[in-house]
């Protein structure tokens, strides 16, 4: 028991590495603040392409969505980060994970938004257009808000997945939260920094997980 | 087949529920209700919405646990610890307002499930028994359909066949026709009538007053968790003793 506490819940170690962990946390927060909006925007763009009335736009988009959904994000990151330099181009780690993130998030968000748009009854468009609204206005004020509401749990849940995905940046040495914690672990020969990081992820993501559960049961 | 399953306890009661009480949290929904049913009898349970009809029926096979009272089926104490309630439930059929057919099983699958799992019948025998009972309700041709492919009236007849197939001593029915379109009601009432003619004991909560008048042996009027009045159909419909009963009957007729 003592050994467990010593190894996993050693508050002295936690206090000592706190500055490192905090720096990592800030880096993670920055990553999320930049990547999540980009991912959502990419998702909306992807959805617009995937629901377009032009086959030439629709099919390649759907193909791309499925392609990037079957690609483990880590493989994507490594591919960009470790592969491209062999061409003689230097790729900063941050750029590598941004590209990988963007492709992955656009595919998943795109698919969610698409399901949302499909769940809005056709009559809604007809009603809106009959009052003289343009296609754009109809989308913006009538169909899209309903679509978002219908897939809110999925959107939230994918956002959580994205936050969790930022940990992959540690593999290419971006000093985000998990990377700092792992570095602190190897410096202190103690796992408490990892537990501290896990605790921070829990603290932030657990409320969201609860909210999703609530939402899902309410919708039923 | 049906006749043989009905017990011969001609004197004494087949179902004897005395002073049944049921409380949900703070509210007492049943305040000491007596319901005694003789073999072969068709008892109608009437009363305003919220009076406790469904709760009383569900207490009779302990789908709701009564909070007080005694409950006997053919002399067996249903509330005793030593009683195997699942074995007894098999002997008390139940038919629901919303049919509650299993949507993932075919019609015959719905009827045979308990035959095979509760009575441990081999498949061939269970199938034969199911077809026999589906014939009684006129649904044998639909044996391989799924519930979603049937009309409400057809679904309810399958629901009746499902409980009938277990050879129950009696059947409880909770508003068996009130979820049905008017033109489908008769098909179900006919089945109920044919069961009565074959001697099946039934307790039915229903608002089908005309049917009650024609077919019921006894009518029990329930209000606020208490039996206000009970008697033959003739007595209740033409000569009710309590003003409250007469008032209720006037209301439901219009």
């Amino acid at each position, binding site marked *: 028991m003592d050994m467990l506490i010593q190894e996993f819940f050693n508050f002295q170690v936690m206090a000592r590495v706190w500055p490192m962990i905090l720096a990592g946390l800030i880096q993670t927060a920055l990553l999320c603040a930049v990547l999540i909006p980009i991912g959502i925007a990419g998702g909306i763009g992807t959805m617009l392409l995937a629901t377009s009335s032009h086959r030439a736009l629709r099919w390649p988009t759907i193909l791309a969505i499925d392609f990037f959904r079957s*690609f483990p994000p880590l493989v994507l990151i490594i*591919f960009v980060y470790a592969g491209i330099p062999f061409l*003689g181009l230097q790729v900063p780690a941050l750029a590598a994970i941004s590209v990988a993130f963007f492709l992955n998030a656009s595919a998943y968000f795109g698919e969610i938004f698409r399901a949302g748009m499909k769940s809005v009854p056709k009559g809604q468009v007809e009603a809106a257009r009959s009052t003289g609204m343009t296609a754009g206005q109809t989308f913006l004020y009538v169909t899209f808000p309903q679509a978002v509401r219908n897939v809110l749990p999925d959107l939230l849940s994918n956002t959580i997945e994205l936050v969790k995905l930022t940990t992959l940046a540690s593999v290419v040495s971006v000093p985000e939260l998990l990377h700092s914690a792992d570095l602190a*672990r190897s410096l202190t020969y*103690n796992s408490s920094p990892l537990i501290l990081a*896990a605790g921070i992820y829990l603290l932030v993501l657990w409320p969201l997980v609860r909210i999703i559960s609530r939402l899902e049961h309410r919708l039923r | 087949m049906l006749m043989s399953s009905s017990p011969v306890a001609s004197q004494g009661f087949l179902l004897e529920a005395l002073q049944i009480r049921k409380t949900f949290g703070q509210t007492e929904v049943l305040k000491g209700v007596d319901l005694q049913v003789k073999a072969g009898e068709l008892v109608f349970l009437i009363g305003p919405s919220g009076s406790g009809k469904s709760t009383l029926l569900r207490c009779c096979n302990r789908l709701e646990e009564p909070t007080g009272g005694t409950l006997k089926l053919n002399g067996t104490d249903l509330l005793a610890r030593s009683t195997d309630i699942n074995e007894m439930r098999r002997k008390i059929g139940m038919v629901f307002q919303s049919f509650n057919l299993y949507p993932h099983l075919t019609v015959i699958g719905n009827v045979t499930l*308990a035959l095979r799992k509760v009575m441990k019948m081999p498949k061939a025998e269970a199938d034969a028994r199911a077809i026999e009972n589906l014939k009684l309700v006129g649904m044998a041709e639909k044996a391989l359909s799924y519930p979603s492919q049937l009309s409400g009236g057809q679904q309810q007849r399958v629901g009746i066949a499902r409980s009938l197939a*277990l050879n129950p001593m009696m059947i409880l029915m909770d508003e068996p026709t009130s979820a049905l379109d008017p033109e489908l009601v008769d098909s179900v009432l006919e089945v109920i009538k044919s069961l009565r003619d074959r001697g099946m004991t039934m307790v039915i909560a229903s608002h089908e007053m005309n049917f009650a008048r024609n077919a019921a042996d006894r009518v029990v009027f329930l209000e606020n968790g208490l039996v206000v009045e009970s008697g033959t159909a003739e007595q209740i419909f033409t000569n009710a003793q309590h003003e409250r009963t007469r008032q209720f009957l006037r209301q439901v007729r219009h």
Partner: protein
Amino acid sequence: METWNRFVFTFFNADIAWRYWPTIVEGLWVTIAAGLLVVVTGVTCGMLLASLRTLGIRALNIPIILFVDIFRALPPLAIILVIFFGLPNVGIVLPSLVVLWTSLGAVLAAFSEEVFWAGITSVPPGQWMASRSTGMTFGQTLFHVILPQAVKLAIPPLTNRTISITKNLALGSAIGVNEILGQANSALSMSSNATPLTMGAFLYVLVFAPLILASRMLERRYQWGGH
């Protein structure tokens, strides 16, 4: 043209591909075996936990909900690192493949418990009543009446979840599991060429694209209704 040749040489180098093909295919078998382990244990445990939750015992439900919430909230890589680096220091040494399996298995168990539970709670209560009224026991009702309906509701979301969690097998490369990405990575450093990575990526798509397509077809079919 020069750039094009260089691109082909770097990412689609036939010589390199020929040389490292066996190494990377070895990784493929590891990925497939680990994937099957994760899926079978994860989904089975998820269904067991959801079934236990139907009993409505508080002392059981609280730990189940805690487990589910925590493993839904934690990043899989964090779980993997804690188990991989933490346990040896308290005297428990697990092979890296086992660490990968248990971590992802637990994550999948958590997510599938949630999906199955949602399925179970959306089966109308009348189904329980109808079944119990015919004398079926709690267990028989759960097994023959409730779960078949719950599973049907659960299959589309569960397939998607299972795929996205199983893709995390690539994280095994971070703790030295010789799955596809791990093998590709070491081939990459040995050959100083990106072709092994292309092959690894190709194999991942080869494994997961059919699953993604299958999940699309499932969703279609379920939308059309039927049985």
